[in-house]
C-alpha cells in the first residue's frame, strides 16, 4: 500500500517539485508556491463543486432545523421530510464530501513532498534519494537550498511572521465560509471553528519547517480569492464594511441579525438559489436596501447632524 502511494502520488509530485525548483532559479520557495498554485488549479472543478454544495446545504439549514424541531418526536417522519427537502432542493448531503475526499490524498501527497524535499536530516536525505527519478535534472537539484526571502524553509520561522500570516489567512477564510445562524449550538460551533483552526495551524507553523507553512499560506490565499469570486466576502462582509467605514470615516453598518428560520410551508420544489444575490442572507439583503433608498440616506444624514451638533456646541463654549 505504501509502495503504491509512493509510486502513484508521492514520487511524481516530489520529483515535479524538484524540477520546478531547478527551473525557478533553484528557489525551493518559488517551487512550493508554483506547485501549490498548479495543484489548486487542477483541483479547481472539485473545489468549486465542494463550495457550491456547501453553499446549497447552508441555504437549506433553516428549513432543516424547522423540520427537526417540528418532527422531533417522530424520527421516521423527520427522515422522510429531510429526504424530501434534499430531493426538492436538488442537494446531495454527501455532495460536499466526495470532492473533499478526492482532494485529500492530493493534499497529503503535496504536504509530504514539501516535507521530504527539504530533507533536513541525513535520514531524510537518504529517504529522499530513494524517491527520486533517475533524471540528471532531478539529481542535480538536490539537496535543495532552503533559503527564501528572510526564511529558512527547513526550520520554523524564528521571527514568528509565518505563524501570524498562516493563522490570519486561515481566520479570513474561515470567517468567509461562516454563515449566520440562529441556532445557538451552531453559533457556538462556528465560533469555535473560527478560532480553533487558525490557532491550531499557527501552532503547527511554529513546529514545522517553514516550507510547509509557505504551502499553507499560499493555499489559504488562493482559497480566499476563490471563495471571494464564488460567494463574495460571505461572513466577512460586515468586517469588510466596518473597515471600509473606518477608512472612509463613514458610519459602520450595524451587525446583521441572524437568519430567521424560514417557514417550511414554502412552495415545495422551489429551485435552490444559486446566484450570489439569491444566496445572500435575507437580513443582509434587507439591510442593503435602505442604503440605496432616499429615506435611508435621509436617516443617515440626520444621524450625522445629531452627532456633530454637540461637538460644535462644546467648541463654542
Amino acid at each position: 500500500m505504501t509502495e503504491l502511494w509512493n509510486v502513484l502520488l508521492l514520487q511524481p509530485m516530489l520529483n515535479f517539485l524538484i524540477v520546478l525548483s531547478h527551473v525557478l532559479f533553484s528557489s525551493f520557495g518559488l517551487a512550493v508556491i508554483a506547485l501549490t498554485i498548479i495543484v489548486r488549479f487542477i483541483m479547481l472543478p472539485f473545489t468549486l463543486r465542494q463550495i457550491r454544495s456547501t453553499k446549497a446545504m447552508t441555504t437549506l439549514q433553516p428549513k432543516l432545523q424547522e423540520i427537526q424541531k417540528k418532527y422531533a418526536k417522530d424520527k421516521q417522519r423527520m427522515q422522510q421530510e429531510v429526504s424530501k427537502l434534499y430531493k426538492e432542493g436538488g442537494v446531495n448531503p454527501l455532495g460536499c464530501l466526495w470532492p473533499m475526499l478526492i482532494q485529500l490524498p492530493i493534499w497529503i501527497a503535496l504536504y509530504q513532498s514539501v516535507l521530504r524535499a527539504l530533507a533536513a536530516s541525513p535520514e531524510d536525505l537518504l529517504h529522499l534519494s530513494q524517491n527520486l527519478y533517475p533524471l540528471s535534472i532531478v539529481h542535480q537539484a538536490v539537496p535543495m537550498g532552503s533559503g527564501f526571502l528572510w526564511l529558512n524553509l527547513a526550520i520554523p520561522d524564528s521571527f514568528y511572521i509565518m505563524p501570524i500570516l498562516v493563522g490570519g489567512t486561515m481566520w479570513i477564510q474561515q470567517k468567509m465560509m461562516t454563515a449566520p445562524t440562529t441556532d445557538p449550538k451552531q453559533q457556538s460551533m462556528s465560533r469555535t471553528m473560527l478560532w480553533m483552526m487558525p490557532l491550531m495551524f499557527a501552532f503547527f507553523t511554529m513546529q514545522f519547517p517553514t516550507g510547509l507553512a509557505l504551502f499553507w499560506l499560499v493555499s489559504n490565499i488562493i482559497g480566499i480569492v476563490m471563495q471571494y469570486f464564488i460567494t463574495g466576502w460571505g461572513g466577512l462582509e460586515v468586517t469588510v464594511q466596518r473597515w471600509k467605514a473606518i477608512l472612509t470615516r463613514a458610519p459602520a453598518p450595524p451587525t446583521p441579525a441572524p437568519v430567521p428560520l424560514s417557514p417550511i410551508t414554502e412552495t415545495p420544489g422551489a429551485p435552490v438559489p444559486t446566484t450570489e444575490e439569491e444566496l445572500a442572507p435575507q437580513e443582509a439583503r434587507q439591510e442593503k436596501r435602505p442604503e440605496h433608498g432616499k429615506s435611508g440616506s435621509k436617516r443617515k444624514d440626520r444621524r450625522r447632524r445629531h452627532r456633530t451638533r454637540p461637538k460644535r456646541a462644546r467648541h463654542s463654549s
Partner: protein
Amino acid sequence: MSEEGDTYDVLYVGTRGGKVFKGILSNDPKPHVALREWFPERGEPGFGAGVGGGFLSCAPPVPKSIYGTPFVYDGRVYIGTYDGKVYAIDAQEMTTEINGWAYPEKGDIGPIVGSPVVEDGVLYIGSSDGKLYALDAESGHEVWPQPFQTDDKIWATPAVHDGVVYIGSFDQNLYAIDAETGTENWRFETQGGIGSTPLIYNNTIYIGAFDSKFYAINLNGTEKWRFDEADSWFWVKAVVYDDIVIAGCLDHWVYALDAETGDKQWDFETLGQIRADPVIVGDLVIIGSKDDKVYALDAGTGEAAWPAPKTVDGHIRAPLFAGEDTVYVYTTAGTLYALDTDNGKKLWEQVTREP
C-alpha cells in the same frame, strides 16, 4: 567509531541520541566491553534558538544527535552535534569540565553532520551554515580570521593533506583550502551536492557526488577521470587497495575502479543502499549495507570472502571500524558488533539502545 588505547583498546561511538559511548575492550577473562557515556548538558539558555526551541517557540529543541564519527587526538575526543556545537571531551574522564571545551560558547553554528578532523593541532569541521571552521584543538579558539564560507550546507568530513584542507559542499563544489590561512586554492565543480569525504591517494583526490558520478581529481584541481555508470548518489568515503579504488553507492552496488584510469575492475551488488564507509582489513574490503548485512569481499577480485554475509540487527549507517582481525559495526538499533574478519562470526555484541 574511533580507537585509542595503551594496554587495551578503546572505542568511542557517537549516537543519534546525542551520547558518546566509551567502550573499553578487554579480553580478560573473556572478550567484553565496559561502557562509559557522556552527553552534553541540556537546556542551556538560548539552546537551539533559530533551529527550534527558542524564546516563545513551541517547537521541540533540535536534538543533540551525533551523526559524525568522534575523532580522538591528544587525550581528547572531539565531536560535532546536530544542534550546532563542537565539543572537546577529556578522553579519560569523559567530561568537558576537565581539559575540554565547547564551541561556540553561546548559541550554535547550525546542524553539524560531518565528522571533525584534527591535523597539527587544528580541528577542522563543516556545518550546515555552509562554513568550514578551523579551531585550535587545545583551546577551541578560531584559527582562521574567519571561517571558510561555501554557498550551501557542508555535511561532509574534511580531509587534510600536505597543508591543504579538502571539503565538499552541497553547493556542488569540492574546495581546496589553505590550512594555514583559510583561503581558497581552487574549487572543482561537480553536477551534484557532495556529502562524502575525499580519499587522497597517490597525489589524486577520489570523491563521489550526488550527481551519481565518481571523480578522480589531480591535486591542482583538474579532472583526471570520472566514472558515470552508477545509478544513484555516492555518499561514502572510498577506500583503496593495491591501486584499486573501491566505492559504495546508494544504488546498492560496490564499484572497484582502477586508480589511474578509472576502468572498472569489478563490481558487487548488495541488497540495500551503501551509506556506511567501508574498511580494508588485510586483503578484504568489508562493506555494510542497508539490507542489514555485512559483506566481506576479496578487495582484488570482488569475490565474497565469507560463507555468507553477516546479518545484524538494524541498519548500518555508521562507518565501519577495522581492528586487528576484527571489524566493529554499529547499527541504528543501538548495537555494537565485533566480527571476526576471517569468517564473519560474531565475537561479541554490546547493546547501548542508542540508535
